[in-house]
């Protein structure tokens, strides 16, 4: 197997005295699509936010393409906390789509997608506009290029947010419950877009979701979180239809029972 694109080594996270992640080892292969499932509060979001550098790691290391994310090696090969420059360099491989979209309200849809390529990557404006338009076309919103986010539906906002993340060409794209803030009738259009990306892209995907059917459809692998640990990790068929851990069985049963009306 090739070098993993992401590797967590014994990663631990505390918020003050509260331990949220408990010595996690985890790998994502290039192009691999991994879904994270598990009860609320089990640490899935924190796990992903560490990779996006939105939370600081307490202990352990994360590697992205063999580079430490939160650390740098000094001349003796010892690890020290990463400088801002190093953090930015390694972070440029990662992208994230948030539950609540967080579009830039003061920019049009096109500007939202063009902004980071121009400002952050220093790409030529014309060329960035072209790729932003391609991206908007991909998520089916090219006709909304000149509108402001306030005029979009939740589903459309999330599709713009996906285009905005994707245009940066990340090697790993994180989705944290991308549809759970949406009205039920708008979930499908967003899932379709994510499915497209998963099918055609060599982007690795880390998808936190409560949509089990969708996880099964897009993921090569599902990891089950409970109490700050990954309890079980395997192909969707194994995790969903042949669960071993009692906590996972319980979780899935409760899930099937509470799942609302058929879609």
């Amino acid at each position, binding site marked *: 197997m090739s070098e993993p694109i992401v590797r967590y080594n014994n990663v631990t996270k505390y918020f003050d005295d509260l331990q949220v992640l408990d010595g996690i080892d985890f790998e994502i292969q290039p192009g691999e699509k991994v879904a994270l499932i598990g009860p609320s509060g089990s640490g899935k979001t924190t796990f992903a936010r560490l990779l996006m550098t939105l939370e600081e790691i307490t202990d352990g290391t994360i590697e992205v393409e063999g580079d430490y994310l939160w650390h740098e090696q000094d001349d003796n090969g010892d690890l020290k906390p990463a400088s801002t420059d190093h953090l930015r360099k390694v972070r440029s491989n990662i992208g*994230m789509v948030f539950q609540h979209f967080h579009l830039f309200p003061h920019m049009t849809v096109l500007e939202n997608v063009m902004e980071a390529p121009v400002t952050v990557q220093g790409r030529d404006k014309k060329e960035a506009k072209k790729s932003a338009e391609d991206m908007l076309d991909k998520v089916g919103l090219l006709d909304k290029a000149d509108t402001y986010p306030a005029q979009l539906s939740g589903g459309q906002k999330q599709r713009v947010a996906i285009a905005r993340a994707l245009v940066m060409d990340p090697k790993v794209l994180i989705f944290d419950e991308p549809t759970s803030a949406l009205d039920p009738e708008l979930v499908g259009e967003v899932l379709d877009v994510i499915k497209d990306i998963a099918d055609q892209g060599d982007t690795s995907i880390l998808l936190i979701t409560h949509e089990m059917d969708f996880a099964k459809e897009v993921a090569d692998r599902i990891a089950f979180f409970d109490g700050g640990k990954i309890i079980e990790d395997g192909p969707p068929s194994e995790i969903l239809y042949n669960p071993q851990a009692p906590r996972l069985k319980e979780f899935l049963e409760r899930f099937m029972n509470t799942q609302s009306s058929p879609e």
Partner: protein
Amino acid sequence: MWDWNYAFEVLPDIASALWVTISATLVGFVLALVVGLIWTLLIRSNNKIISNVADGIVKFIRNTPLLVQLYFIFYVFPQFGLSLEPFTAGVIGLGLHYSTYLSEVYRSGIESVGPGQWEVATALNFDTRKTWTRIILPQAIPPVLPVIGNYFITMFKETPLLSAITLVEILQTAQNIGASTFRYTEPLTIVGVLFLLLSYPASVALRQLEIRVTERY
């Protein structure tokens, strides 16, 4: 009581001093806008020492009278080798004093921008400077523009204080005329009317701006 001939006679002199008042307001306000933003950023610094020192200075300036500060800059600084023209001293005093109010206005604007905007800026790998200039400030400033405009008008109306440090602005001019002719009614009335003529339209324009801003957000 009221002598129109006399009024028209003194009007040109007073009106020409208006230029001093207006330029002191403009320069002072630009200073306040810039320094106010610097205070806000310093107070938000992760470095506790920087943040506390900046916060202390701002509180000190905000809670002492502008007039005392003007006297200090004009009459005390020279003892430490810093002699300033009345205009320069006045503009620094005004700008510094109002920078502390504007710092507070910026702060409330910045806090109205949700944490998600900061997070998405990190996720898209913006550096600190571009996060501020491209994402945070363009959202933080428009909602507080009406408040900023209000301070502008207030500052304009406070410029007569600069006569206390010998700046010959519009009030001082009227006083000088009054002192030489022993007629104060016309010159002082003209000063009042000139202030009204300038600040009233400004506050009407501000009201319009306020309506536009609230519509947009």
